[in-house]
């Protein structure tokens, strides 16, 4: 079967786009991606979005956004998997091209969080958990992450500032990403002074909610000229797995089984081993998720993920560079669009276009996007083709 490659991509800055609505923000990313792909016209649009139906009172994004982008008539549907929505859309696009059904697909991640503010926003966010048995108790995603982090710290005897490495690394990398919401490095003292959100989670353990749109053009490799302007990026592995929606239904809450399963499959499919991976874009919406992802994928042993971050192992010159463009923590967390941002950031690294944040000569990138506490985990391996 033929290879599926990323031919072009485009992204908006991540932040509060008060003046730009859902459709316009989407178009900015789509337009940039299609131009980057040399004007290639996609046969389908797969939209990854989490909450537009609630926050913007707008469902049925496929036709709206395809039409607005001048692509009226093409296949256009939305795929929803909470925070993993656009990663799931990327996988759908990969499968469509890999199967031979389509030659070119456009993937769009879009989230317009700022369309609703206050407790209504928190209510909407909580709908991604188990409504009858989690959200009804007043549980929010950040409180749930706090429950995990507290237990993790209790079992593994983590000191109070043990998780600082995740935020410090993310912010150091955000400083080199002109699309990031936060572009300033922070010092350990600042982390230690961070206000508590839900104990033990402080503001630096939480990725900021933001608006953003990011798009990628996928195509079958044979269709492309071998002498294009940009190095081609192959999707060498793609896998998705699910776990219980409710965290409390798991026998072992401190291991992200779906993250483990999907990463294992994607890496096997790429026919590589973990130590061949040059960078890892993880879903650090909370620093405890980053720690559990490192452990579940296998970069750290159980209970030791926080140490890898504390010891500089996830820095750009570390054992496994993570959040190389700032991650969700510093680039910002545009909900269901996060997975598309991760894919673009990994592709920037593989193309050699990450500027100040460039990792030295990377060949393989692992990207993993989570919905909820890894109730969905979508993992891709991207490979630079020379």
């Amino acid at each position: 079967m033929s290879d599926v490659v990323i031919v072009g991509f485009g992204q908006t800055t991540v932040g509060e786009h008060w003046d730009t609505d859902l459709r316009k923000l989407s178009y900015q990313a789509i337009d940039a991606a299609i131009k980057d792909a040399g004007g290639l016209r996609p046969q389908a649009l797969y939209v990854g979005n989490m909450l537009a139906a609630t926050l913007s009172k707008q469902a049925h994004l496929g036709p709206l956004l395809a039409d607005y982008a001048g692509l009226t008539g093409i296949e256009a549907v939305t795929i929803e998997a909470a925070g993993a929505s656009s990663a799931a859309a990327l996988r759908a696009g990969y499968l469509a091209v890999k199967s031979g059904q389509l030659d070119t697909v456009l993937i769009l991640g879009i989230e317009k969080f700022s369309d609703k503010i206050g407790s209504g926003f928190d209510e909407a966010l909580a709908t991604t958990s188990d409504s009858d048995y989690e959200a009804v108790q007043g549980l929010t995603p950040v409180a749930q992450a706090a429950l995990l982090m507290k237990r993790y710290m209790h079992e593994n005897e983590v000191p109070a500032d043990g998780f600082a490495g995740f935020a410090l690394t993310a912010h150091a990398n955000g400083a080199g990403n002109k699309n990031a919401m936060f572009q300033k490095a922070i010092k350990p003292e600042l982390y230690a002074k961070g206000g508590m959100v839900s104990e033990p989670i402080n503001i630096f353990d939480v990725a900021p909610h933001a608006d953003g749109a990011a798009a990628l053009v996928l195509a079958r490799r044979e269709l492309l000229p071998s002498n294009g302007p940009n190095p081609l990026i192959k999707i060498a592995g793609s896998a998705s797995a699910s776990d219980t929606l409710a965290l409390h239904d798991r026998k072992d809450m401190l291991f992200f089984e779906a993250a483990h399963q999907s990463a294992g499959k994607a890496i096997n499919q790429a026919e590589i081993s973990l130590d061949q991976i040059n960078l890892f874009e993880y879903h650090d919406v909370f620093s405890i998720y980053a720690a559990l992802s490192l452990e579940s994928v296998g970069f750290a042993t159980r209970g030791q993920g926080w140490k890898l971050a504390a010891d500089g192992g996830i820095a750009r010159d570390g054992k496994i560079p993570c959040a190389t463009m700032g991650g969700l923590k510093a680039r910002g967390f545009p909900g269901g669009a996060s997975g598309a941002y991760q894919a673009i950031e990994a592709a920037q690294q593989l193309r050699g276009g990450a500027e100040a944040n460039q990792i030295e000569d990377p060949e393989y990138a692992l990207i993993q996007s989570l919905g909820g506490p890894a109730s969905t985990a979508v993992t891709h391996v991207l490979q630079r083709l020379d």
Partner: protein
Amino acid sequence: MEIPRHWRLKQQRYRLVGEVCQHCESKIFPPRDICPECGGEADTLYTFSGNGEVYSYTTVHEGPAGYDDSTPYTVALVKLDEGPTVTAQLTDVDEDSLQIGMPVEMVTRKLKNDGDERGMIVYGYKFRPRMAVA
């Protein structure tokens, strides 16, 4: 307003009614059609004792709509004596005495206001520190 939905769940919310698997005797909460332990069909009701211990806990300072009047409140993962874990608020609890492993028992309390100020009030389980046996 979501009256039918809350009505449907009243056995679970007021009395912790789950199931016991006829095949492997696992206790299941909330009830589901397939036993998560053995994959067999589950349909025999079982009322939980309401006793358990705190697996983890935290405080919510900014609540979602319907809960924002009750902040700050404590939510916990409570491991029930019979096996399953539930997410629930803790009540009648002194923050400073709270710790992982603390024995708790189920009580019924107001969970949220559904809808506007004239809306239905949703009641359900919360947990409080278990009274020492004299």
